[in-house]
Every structure is written in structure tokens, then in C-alpha cells.
């Protein structure tokens, strides 16, 4: 990997002025109460209401989403119009799998840095519970043959070609979470990392328990005020992330069976990110826009990096994306006050931490002379992560960026790194800073 310059270093500064997100709602075996566009709309509506500018003042809207529903293909445009941005604000949807939300922020930041935009609404949304069930190709072929048959005889003949197996649906979500190149689902890539770095079932389960405990603590102490309550049509409202299991314990997690590599694997539903619906937005602004509307600055987007690696090791993506950023700024781990590394799997975060200080890995894979200092776990995912909050793939990148800035604001920290592993073998990371008075 050749060293890259910081794409943001030469441009105008990029500010984050505000943000909000929906609660992350755990999928419960059937489509959740809200579509991806509804979640993004409701998360954004209150956010825009409190701004001193109007929704039409945005230069563009960028939304990350992996699987928009069939009625919302360019979901960014659908939501922008529902939010009142008007006919004349362009909107586009970005897709980089699990980091789509972070990709949206990066695109927004680039356009502000380059001078193309002054004010951008960017974020991510996903309603994984609404992932479609699809007809198999065999079924579609049969349907085409049947409806093409003109005579009664031909119709009867077509009818006899039907096989009950055609009715077996293709589960869109499973397809989406499976790498077609290496034929591994995401859980299996996590098993590979567990094996490679010798991460035990106990270690991942205790990581999972801690994730729930941290979310519980954060909820109790009001550390998640970026959440906007969402409402459905049936008189229900959703004020908080509902994937939390405050009573999670090692004993309970130990009872769960491995789901991806049966029967000998270690990765269970309990130590993996939950299948979840949610959306998150940030408002990014240039210095001119900050002055023009007198906007409060939450923080700055300072640097970003995308990296790629062997798809079967995709969980290590963050290591590959973060390292160049720290190198560019001559930082070591201790210079970062807050880390958000998305928890796709407990073992995947643990593997990143191991690789980060593994001399061989840093030398062979990252080309570093010596490994980084260990990442202080008291600064990492301090208010829970994907395991407890859930991981609506398109939204998580925006969620962790927003929460990292909120955490800097709350704790008085200066610098945060947010990063995600990306199905297909990539990693993305962003460096955020906040001037604390």
C-alpha cells in the first residue's frame, strides 16, 4: 500500500455542526415498524427543525444505505424531499457496505474541503428487518415461461414444469452478509480471526457483556442525547436503542450455540452485532456556512482513509485504515482520546486490538517498523457498540462519528478515531477533532 496524502489537508476546513439519530431497533423476526426512509426522515426532521437555516439551504444530501427498499432506490433523494429540502437540492445514495454511512460523511467532507459545497446533510440508514425475500432464479424463469405461454396446451405444459422447490425464497439479508468472492458469510470471517489470533469464546463473551453494560450505563446517564424518538402509525414510540440486554451475563451468553460454524465455532448471536434498523445524520458545514448562519461547531473532520485487504480477513479493516492516519499525523494510540471501532463481532474488535500491537502483523501487513501502543479499552466504544446497540449496516458509520464527537464534547477530549470493518475486505476510518474551550 503506497502512502497517501491526507485528502482533507489541502482543502478548506470541514465542520460538523449538529447531528441526530433514530434509536436502533432490533429486528424481531419480521419487518420492523419503520422503513429505512421513515427512519432517516424521522431522525432528520427534528434535527432540521432546530437549525437556524432552512432545509433548502443545503447544497446536497448524501445518505449511505446498503439495501434501500424497492420504492426508495435513491433513498437519499426520497428522504431529502420528505425533509423539505425542496426540488433543487441534489441528493445521492452511497454504498460501501458496512461503512456506507461513513462514506457519506467522507463524500460530504471532500466536497466541502474542495469548495464544491458549503452545507451538506449526510448520514446513513438501514432497515435490515425489511431486507427482501426474493424469488429464486428458477422461479422467475418458470413464471416467465408460464406467462409467455399462449395456448391452453402450452399453459398446461408450463404448469407441469413447476417444482415446489421453486417457492423456496432467497433471503436477501443472508445474501447481503455473504461474501460472494470467498464464499464466506461475515460470521465465518470472524471465526477465521478468532482462530488466527487465538481469541477464546470466554473473551468474546466477556467483551459482549461489557458492551451491554456500557450501553446500559450510557442510557442511565443520558450519554445518548443525540437520539430522536421515533413514532409508528400504531400509537407506539421508540425512545431508545432496544437491543440492550442489561441483564447480559457470561452464564447466559455461554448457553448460546455458534451460528456460523456449527458445531465447533465460537461466534454466537450473543457476541455478534445485532440485526437492527436505524438511521443517523450529521450536518457538515464550511467555515463560511458556520459564519453565515452562526452555527455552533461540534467538531472538525480532519482526515479519512479507506483501505482494502483479503476479504476473508475483512474484520481487520480498521487496522489498515487507522494506521495510515496516525502515521500521517505522527500520532500514537495515546494521542487519541476516544475510539469508536464498530463492533461487527466482539471477536473482530478483539482481533483488531491484537493486530494493532502484534509486531509481525504490523511489519508484514502494514509495513511498520514497530507496532503501535495498545489502545486503551477505557477509551474504546465507551458507550457500547454494535453488539449491544446493533449494526444497521448503512447507518453505523454515521452513528459512531456522531457519537464520538458527542463524547469529545461531554468528556472534554480533543481527538477521536472512528472506524469500521467492511464486508468484502475493506476498512474505513476518520479522524475527528474538537476544540474544547
Amino acid at each position, binding site marked *: 500500500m503506497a502512502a497517501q496524502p491526507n485528502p482533507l489537508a489541502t482543502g478548506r476546513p470541514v465542520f460538523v455542526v449538529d447531528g441526530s439519530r433514530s434509536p436502533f431497533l432490533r429486528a424481531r423476526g419480521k419487518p420492523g415498524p419503520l422503513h429505512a426512509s421513515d427512519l432517516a426522515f424521522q431522525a432528520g426532521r*427534528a434535527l432540521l*427543525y432546530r437549525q437556524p437555516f432552512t432545509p433548502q439551504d443545503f447544497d446536497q444530501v448524501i445518505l449511505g444505505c446498503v439495501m434501500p427498499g424497492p420504492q426508495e432506490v435513491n433513498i437519499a433523494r426520497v428522504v431529502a424531499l*420528505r425533509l423539505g429540502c425542496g426540488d433543487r437540492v441534489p441528493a445521492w445514495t452511497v454504498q460501501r457496505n458496512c461503512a456506507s454511512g461513513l462514506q457519506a460523511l467522507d463524500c460530504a467532507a471532500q466536497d466541502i474541503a474542495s469548495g464544491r459545497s458549503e452545507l451538506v446533510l449526510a448520514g446513513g440508514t438501514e432497515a435490515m428487518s425489511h431486507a427482501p425475500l426474493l424469488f429464486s432464479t428458477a422461479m422467475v424463469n418458470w413464471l416467465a415461461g408460464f406467462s409467455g405461454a399462449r395456448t391452453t396446451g402450452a399453459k398446461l405444459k408450463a404448469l407441469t414444469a413447476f417444482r415446489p422447490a421453486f417457492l423456496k425464497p432467497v433471503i436477501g439479508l443472508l445474501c447481503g452478509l455473504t461474501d460472494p468472492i470467498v464464499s464466506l458469510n461475515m460470521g465465518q470471517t470472524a471465526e477465521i480471526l478468532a482462530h488466527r489470533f487465538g481469541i477464546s469464546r470466554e473473551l468474546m463473551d466477556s467483551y459482549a457483556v461489557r458492551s451491554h453494560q456500557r450501553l446500559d450505563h450510557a442510557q442511565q446517564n443520558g450519554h445518548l442525547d443525540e437520539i430522536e*424518538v421515533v*413514532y409508528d402509525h*400504531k400509537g*407506539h*414510540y421508540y425512545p431508545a436503542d432496544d437491543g440492550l440486554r442489561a441483564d447480559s451475563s457470561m452464564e447466559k451468553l455461554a448457553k448460546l450455540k455458534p451460528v456460523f460454524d456449527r458445531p465447533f465455532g465460537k461466534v454466537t448471536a450473543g457476541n455478534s452485532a445485532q440485526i437492527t434498523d436505524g438511521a443517523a445524520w450529521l450536518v457538515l458545514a464550511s467555515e463560511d456556512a458556520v459564519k453565515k448562519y452562526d452555527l455552533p461547531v461540534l467538531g472538525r473532520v480532519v482526515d479519512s482513509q479507506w483501505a482494502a485487504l483479503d476479504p476473508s480477513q475483512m474484520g481487520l479493516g480498521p487496522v489498515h485504515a487507522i494506521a495510515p492516519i496516525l502515521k500521517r499525523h505522527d500520532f500514537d494510540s495515546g494521542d487519541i482520546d476516544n475510539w469508536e471501532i464498530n463492533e461487527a463481532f466482539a471477536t473482530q474488535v478483539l482481533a483488531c486490538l491484537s493486530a494493532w500491537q502484534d509486531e509481525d502483523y504490523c511489519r508484514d501487513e502494514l509495513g511498520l517498523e514497530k507496532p503501535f501502543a495498545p489502545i486503551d479499552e477505557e477509551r474504546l466504544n465507551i458507550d457500547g457498540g454494535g453488539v449491544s446497540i446493533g449494526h444497521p449496516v448503512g447507518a453505523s458509520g454515521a452513528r459512531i462519528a456522531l457519537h464520538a464527537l458527542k463524547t469529545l464534547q461531554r468528556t472534554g477530549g480533543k481527538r477521536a478515531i472512528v472506524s469500521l470493518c467492511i464486508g468484502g475486505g475493506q476498512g474505513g476510518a476518520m479522524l475527528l477533532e474538537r476544540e474544547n474551550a
Partner: protein
Amino acid sequence: MDTASETNEKRDLYTVIDDDNIAWLHFDKQGTGTNVLSAAILEAFYEELLELVERAPRGLVILSDKRNGFIAGADVREFTQLANHDEAVSAIQRGQAVFDRLAALPFPSVALIHGFCLGGGLEMALACRYRVARDDPGTRLGLPEVRLGIHPGFGGSVRLTPLVGALHAMDLMLSGRSVDGRAAKRMGIVDHAVPERHLKSAARALILDPPFPHRPSKLQALSNHAWVRPVLARVFRHQVSKKARKDHYPAPYALIDLWQQHADNERDMMHAEAESVANLITGPTAQNLIRVFLLQEQLKALGRGTDFKPKCIHVVGAGIMGGDIAAWCALRGMQVTLSDQSPERIAPAIKRAHTLFKRRLKRPRPIQEAMDRLMPDHKGLGVEQADVVIEAIFEDAEVKRSLYRELEPRMRKGAILATNTSSIPLAELRDVLDDPACLVGIHFFNPVAKMQLVEIVRDDETDSEVVAKAIAFTRKIDRLPLPVTSTPGFLVNRVLMPYLLEAVELENEGIPPAEIDRQALEFGMPMGPIELADTVGLDICLHVAENLGKHLNTPVPQRLRDLVNQGRLGRKSGAGFYQYKKGKAVKPALPKGYHPHADISDRMILRMLNEVVACLREKVIEEADHLDAGMVYGTGFAPFRGGPLYYIEAMGADTLLQRLRNLEQKLGDRFKPDPGWEYVAGFTDEKETHGNG
């Protein structure tokens, strides 16, 4: 006449012949935004048709130059000027003759319909060979004549039934409802429902290559068969009887008779139609309903005095009233924020709003748009942007005052602060404000989506500009504003209360509640007072009665207190005066041989009228006509009687006063006539009568 002066002078209708030799006849009534068919315009139209026959174009397209629609119907004001039955018959027959001429044109004709196409407008369209309607929600086709106590008279009933069958036709004419272009196409009323961009092409195509005119399906045609009609007529009568009594509203019944007896012969039916409408239109029901319609127009016109154009509404309090007000505003296109102390309190209102939007808007995207306009706002973000802030929290003056103290500094300049209070005078609420003159009452009734009337409450201190804005807002959300003074109970509740309390009194004396309700219905009230009390909730009735009782010196019946203490709160608790099963009142049959007391109806109605007279004397409303409008639209006071004051006039104020005095002697103070009786129209001074005699 030279051509120059012809083109300079704008005309109510004019014809342009295009290169295909198609005549385009434009309606554009001068001096108004809406086309209506006055007698003069009908004559001009007739002249135009005669000229067209001379010019023999390839076809005729009739269209309107008005933005809001085709033709909104006949000129209702002319209805009130018909002196007698014969005059009415000849006016109607003249209209029929004009449309007959249209129907008999020797070339194809097309009505090109957009927006309103109602009453006489649709009858004209039906006389054309083809009809094309614009496919959008703003296009409304209907025959609403029954709502004015008549039925179609320019051949509408004669032409519609054979065109689409009796089921669709009678449904439209008996209900008076209107349908959009797409529904009209489905029914067969129009030949095409197309978007604006295809309207003229569709009309041109129909004329250049004329197809067979629309015919009903076999089943639809069967509904007009002589053997089927008697059976269907019974079904129709039964359906109508559930909504309107024959003695109060004769028009729908007359229409069913007309169809049943004459549907085999078009000429006979035309004659019978004219006779029937002439009978109806000169009768008291139609005249009173037309009066009520004109009163409504009068209230609607109140909103024209200001250019206030509210867009953002903030409602505080997501209870039944606040939630439903917010939903209604969102339905009518406002950007609404609905706030309360917690999301938990707001969520049920969002559900009710969704139910309302689904019922009203039907298609998914309009429902979503309305939902998107209604923002649950437990943090109260909407205050700063609101043009109108409506407070609809519980009736506690102190809590309201502290709320206003919070709201006022956050509100934008020029926004109005309105309270939905039903019982607290503005004077008790406003002194916490920096600008006390800016508080106004906008008092909605429950259920908000059904009750058209809204009381605009003000007193001497209220800024008249603010009142004008409140009225403009009310019109913007398509409700009827009724300006009233900030006196206890305002108008509607104040007048209803003695009527309800007298009903409770009667029940307490042992009169079966079902009999009390029956007599009120017979008078023409939409719901009996006992059932109404149960529906409103006896606890709420008691609260209002106690509150008003203090001011108006009306005793509160112990019976009401007892029921509330027993937890019998009415429909919502499953029992009040009646028992409720699945939300419906179980009304026990009257005992055999029961003879109702003669006074029942009088006692209830006269107490109501007495209060009406008091309101008039105290000038609770600005004009006497407003009182009638308010009572009809706010309490459902028998519309066919034209309003309470009109009723007093019709009955003779002195007669009613005498009956009131008799009741006073018999039953005591609560029947004490208000001093205002002597000034009511229809009152003839006794001495004067003697003098003349």
C-alpha cells in the same frame, strides 16, 4: 357591432372555432372567481347554442376559464327569490329546455371538466354526449342538491340514472357526495379521466373520431328496469331513513319516488322532475337549508379581511382535542408540531391522526405527506417557527398562565397565541403576557374532524388584528369561524347546557331516556340530549355545568352528580344514562301504553331558545345571523328549521314566550324568560295587537 368592441368587452361566455372546425365554448363569468349558472348566463348559453347550430362546427367542447373549476352549480341566491310554485316550475323548465337544446345538438359535444363540477354544472355536462375529467384530487363531480333540500332539476336525475345505472346514480344524488375524476370514470359518469396535459387531446379525439356514447353495463341497466325499481326503491328509502326523516327532509324521498314512477319515460320524468323540484324549493325545508347554506357562506367570508397566511402551527397538549386539532391542521396542509410532556402522551395522537388521514386521503403518498407534516415534538422545538400557537392543555388557569409565560418570548413576531379553553375567560389568562391583547380563543369542538364550527373568542381587550388572523387561520384549515365574546360558555356550550340539563331533569322525573331522545330527534336535533351527554362524557358535562352554573345561575341536577360518583361516565365507561354494548347505546323499549307527557320537547327546546335569546341580548355574537349559523353548525340544531332565531320568528316569539311563562309558573325559575324576548323578530307586542284589533 364592430369586432374591436366585441373583443375589448369581456364576456361571461365566448366561443372560439379552431382549425379543425371544433367549437370551444368557454365559460368565464365576469366579476367572480367561480362559474355559477345564473338565469342570465343560461340565456346567454342558449343564444350561443343557437348560433352554433347555424355555424355547424364539427363538434363542441364546453370548458371553463376559471382556475377553481368547471361550473360550481346554479346560483343559490336565485332560489330564494322564487315567488311561488308556478314561477319555480317555469324557471326550472327553462333550464331544462336549455340543456335539452344542448343534448339535441346535431354534432358531438364534450364537457371538459376540471375542479368543481357540481349540481347544474354536472347536469350540463350530462347533457353533453361525452365528458372528460381531469385526474387530480381537486376535481370534484357531484349533485349536492339534496343538501339544499331539493334534487337535480335540470334533467340531472333523468340523464344520470340511465347513464350509469341506479345504484351509482342514486348513491350520488341521495348522499350529495362528490367524487374525483378517477372515481367518476370508474362509475361511468365520464368517458375519460386524464391528467391536465391530455385534457384537450382527449376532447379533440372524441370529436374527430366519435365513439358510441357511454352505456351502462347490463347489470347497471337492469337496475332501472320497471320490475326492479320497486324493490330497489324500498332499499333506497330504508337507507335514507337512517340518515334523514321524511317529515324533516322530503327531497331524497321525492327523488326516489320520481325515479320509481317515471324512469321509463324521459319526457314524463323531465316534467315530473320540474314539478318535484318546484314543490321542494318553495317548501320550508329547502328555503331554510338554503338560508343555512348562505349563512355558511357568510361565516366563510369573514376570513377575507387579512393577508395572514399561516403555514406552521404549534399545538401544545396532545390530548383528544389538541391531538385532533393538530391532525386536522396537518390534513389541511399545515406544517404542524404537536408537543406534550412526553412522547408517551403524543404517540396515541399520532395513531389517531394516521386513522384520520387513511380515511380521508386513501392513497399512500398523500397519507405519508400528511404524516410527515405532523411532527411529534415533546421538546417543543416548533414554537419559534409557528405562525399560530394553539394551547389545548387541561382546564387549569394557573398551568395555562405559566405555559404562556414560557411560550410568549419564544414566539416569532406576528404569530398569534390561541387557547382552546372552553370555560376560562381570556381575562383570567392574559395578564402574564407582555402583550395581553394578543391572546385569542380558538375553540374547537369534539370531534374536530366532524365539527365544522370553531368559536373565535375575544373580548374588548383583544387586538382586532389578532382576531382577524385567528379567523383567517380557521378558514385556512377549512373550518367555520364564529366570533363570540369571552363570556362563560361562549355560545355553543352555553346554549346546549340548559337543554342537556333539562333532559337530565326529565330523566330524573322518570321519563324514559329513550323517549326524551326520541322527542329531540323529532324536533330535528342530530342526536338526543341523553345520548349526547353520554357521548360527551358525564364527568365533562358535570364539569361544564358546574362551571357555567355559577355564572348563569343554573342549578346542576343531583342526578348528574350521582351518576358521575358511581363511575357511570357515559359511553367511554360503558354506562351512563344508557348501557353501552360495543359502543352502542342499548335503549330499552318504552313501557306498553306509555303516553309521553306533552311538555317534554317544549321544556328542552324552550330552555335552549331562552338561552339563545339571552346570548342575542348580551351580544355574544356580532350579528343575529351568526347565532343561527353557530347553532346549526355547532350544535346541529335542526338545519331544516333554519336556525333557532329563524325558528322563533316562524313560530312567533310571543307564542313561545307565553309557553315559557307557563312553564315558569309550573316548574319555577329556570324557565324565567330572558328580558331579550321582546326584541326578537316575530315578537308582536300584545298591546299593539289589541290596539289594531
